[in-house]
């Protein structure tokens, strides 16, 4: 699920690793440990879901920015459909059909 949250974060614009870790970890509470986001990003890049490039930073050394690929966009769209179905099914069980 976290993988698709990363894809979703990258949908509007490319982001760098620290930024993603902050949103999902400190802000979103989706990551128990922020360090796990980097191996995840590396795996997603290997899988062709994202690409990365170095960009200059105004406040320090260059940052590795990640961007969605066409394959990543397709994976995200497919997951959104699945997630909606899954959430409805869970709501029916948890809320007794009051969803």
């Amino acid at each position, binding site marked *: 699920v976290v993988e698709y949250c990363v894809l979703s974060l990258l949908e509007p614009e490319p982001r760098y690793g620290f930024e993603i870790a902050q949103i999902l970890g400190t802000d979103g509470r989706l990551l128990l440990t922020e*360090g796990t986001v980097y191996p*995840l990003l*590396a*795996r997603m890049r290997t899988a062709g879901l994202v690409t990365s490039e170095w960009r200059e930073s105004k406040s320090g*050394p260059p940052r590795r920015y990640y961007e969605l690929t066409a394959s990543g966009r397709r994976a995200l769209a497919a997951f959104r459909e699945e997630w909606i179905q899954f959430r409805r099914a869970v709501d029916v069980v948890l809320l007794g059909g009051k969803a």
Partner: protein
Amino acid sequence: MTAPHAKQIVAGYLARLDQELDSLSALTSSEKSEALAQIESHVNEARGALTDETDADILNILDRLGSPDEVADSVRSSRPDASIPVAPKKAPTTFERTLVMAAILMWAGGLASLIGALVLFSTSDFEPASFLSLFAGICGVMSGAVVFKRPAVAVVGVLLAAVAVGRNLTYWYLLPSNFNTIDDAALVMLVLGGALAGVAATLLHPGQVPKRSS
């Protein structure tokens, strides 16, 4: 202001992470370097956001990152080939391509000269039955080498080629009257073709040796 022990704390964390990553045998040096660089960059980014950092701030940053073994564990489990490493696909070199081409040409040449011998000389000078059995044997050697990718089959092909060459040399020097040029040349070409195909198949499709993964 920089925290008094920031350098030691961060260096200690990165050293422990380095050790943990070293224990992952399947990890390449570039994957390890990237993982370390990303974590170091994260710490620097987090420190950059602080106006007046303390040792406690540094420790909190590292706490949020996770312990070195947690980070190393996520690196290990994020690898697509964590359980069964696959040998990288090797592109054939010019030498290997030449070997394959030579095998194909020798086979085409051998086959053409044999058909030519059958058509031109009928069956008076050699025995088709024994020749066909040898031909079938060589076909087996070649297909075995190519399809099953067995180095041992290539060795058998090389031995057969040596026997054929030896037989021809014997005829040439000792019994020249018994030497049938087209027939024997074709046999040598077929056998050598089979041997070359076997060697090429072995070079192009080396056995995949599984690496140990932790």
